[in-house]
């Protein structure tokens, strides 16, 4: 399929990209400015680079620990949520379960809760209720992985359902005729066809978990502290270290960008699949 004027979309998208990229560019500008330049007249063009903020951040062992925690928590959460969401969507679209539409709707109500007021109940549950002997979910990576399910699992179920529903039922019915077990059908037929949808769900839930701030700031204090909460440590009563904050912010973008570009191949595969089908 060829567009007649390939330069027109290119031109338009270049303009859109300027708007999209500007705040990120500005974040970068702030991260490489000398502290005393920050409050002078703003200038769109960058004239000098000051890398000390990045040096400070990258050599800081605490922040590196936070980054590792963030990676473990968001990857664990995204994998768990996408897997459970996929299983749930299969159950909701292929089985005739009593009240399944109500269950489907109920899942999303978990994402509607205003977060501020749920911080204390979650804190109390994690520190006092959800514990087995010495093992407690409070300030643990597993605890955060599970807590993030409250907003990510409904998201996964709601974004995946149209995908699973869109896979023709005739395909799995034919496989059942051939004597396949439900697990085989799920793995060999539904899973490959649902891949573009699963990829989108996986990156988005990963990103939501990676970016979460309020819950992490309240529910963790050392073992599971994440990078976004590390940011707030630079907002102090004596002023905000904007340069350091900007440098941390730029660094939080890097893993997200890597994850995104790795999974994007699958979305492209999904795009070709759509084209081949037609």
């Amino acid at each position, binding site marked *: 399929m060829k567009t007649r004027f390939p330069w027109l979309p290119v031109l338009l998208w270049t303009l859109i990209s300027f708007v999209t*990229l500007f705040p990120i560019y500005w974040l970068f500008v702030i991260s490489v400015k000398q502290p005393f330049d920050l409050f002078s007249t703003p200038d*769109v063009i960058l004239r000098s680079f000051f890398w000390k903020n990045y040096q400070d951040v990258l050599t800081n062992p605490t922040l590196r620990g936070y980054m590792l925690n963030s990676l473990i928590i968001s990857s664990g959460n995204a994998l768990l949520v996408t897997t459970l969401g996929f299983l749930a969507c299969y*159950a909701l679209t292929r089985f005739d379960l009593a009240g399944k539409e109500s269950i489907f709707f109920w899942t999303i109500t978990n994402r509607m809760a205003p977060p501020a007021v*749920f911080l204390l109940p979650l804190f109390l549950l994690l520190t006092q209720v959800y514990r087995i002997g010495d093992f407690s979910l409070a300030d643990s990576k597993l605890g955060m992985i599970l807590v993030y399910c409250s907003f990510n699992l409904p998201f996964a179920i709601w974004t995946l*359902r149209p995908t699973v529903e869109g896979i023709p039922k005739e395909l799995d019915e034919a496989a059942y005729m051939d004597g396949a077990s439900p697990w085989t059908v799920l793995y060999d037929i539904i899973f490959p066809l649902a891949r573009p949808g699963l990829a989108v769900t996986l990156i988005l839930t990963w990103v939501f978990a990676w970016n979460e701030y309020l819950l992490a700031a309240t529910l963790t204090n050392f073992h599971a502290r994440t990078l976004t909460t590390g940011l707030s440590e630079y907002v102090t009563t004596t002023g905000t270290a904007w340069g350091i904050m900007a440098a941390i912010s730029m660094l939080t973008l890097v893993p997200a960008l890597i994850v995104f570009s790795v999974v994007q191949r699958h979305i492209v595969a999904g795009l070709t699949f759509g084209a081949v089908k037609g």
Partner: protein
Amino acid sequence: MHSQKLGWLLLSPTIVILGLFGIFPFIYVLWVSFHSWNPFAANPGMVFNWAENYRRLVFDPQFLASLGITLTFVFFAVVSELVLGYILAQALLKDFPGKAVFRTIHTLPLIMAPIIVGSVWKLMTTPSIGIIPYLLRSWFGYDLNIGQSAVAAFTVTVIMDIWHWTPLVTLSLIAALVSLPSDPFEQAQIDGAGKSQIFWHITLPLIRPALLATVFIRLMDALRTVDEVLMLTGGGPGSSTRYIGVHIFREVFPKTNYGYGSAISVIVLYLTIVVCWLLYVGLIAPRVKRG
């Protein structure tokens, strides 16, 4: 079809986890909402006060005002995101040089943390040091001051939301559009249908499930926005950007008014559920019955 037991087995982990981290905290919040409670006071006892918190809420002008501006904010932001997101998704389905690069660029805002988005927009729009007020002043002589003008602050929060979340709409619509069958479109073209006819009668009905899921997610997330706006404007000037999420945060943290904050949360959650449920029953359920 096959055994219902297996279906419930597949659903059970979801139900258990959401029960433990969704329903349990909610029951606790519901219980607190019938008490007067300041957990950080010298005497942090919970006092049962019947429905006093709820009575107060109905007559609280600040809460009602906050509800009103939240709905205005959500309306402008979500409608713009849907229209823009759809146009951009369609544009990204066509083939043109550098498409993959542009798509990656377009997705970048989405991978930024709300707290960081709030900080950046604050740095860009603060009157004394921000680049946007500076450029607007030197190019158009317009003085943008989000610290003083309610309209300016409101507009900037809407633009920030559009900037941050349009890519989400685009992505999920791309996923929906690529999985569409091509037969109905070919048939319509053979029958000589126009572009707008194809859009209203074929594209729209076919992508409706995905579109509605996207609307729902955006609607409920916009309704509970906190970090971004709190960081950008802190709810001000006055209470012009004190959206409901920010309002609850202010009520619970600086004022430590836990019982009242819980009552607001319960009501807001209830209203959100009712609105979404009506949309769901009105728009999705008919399709399920037909299908």
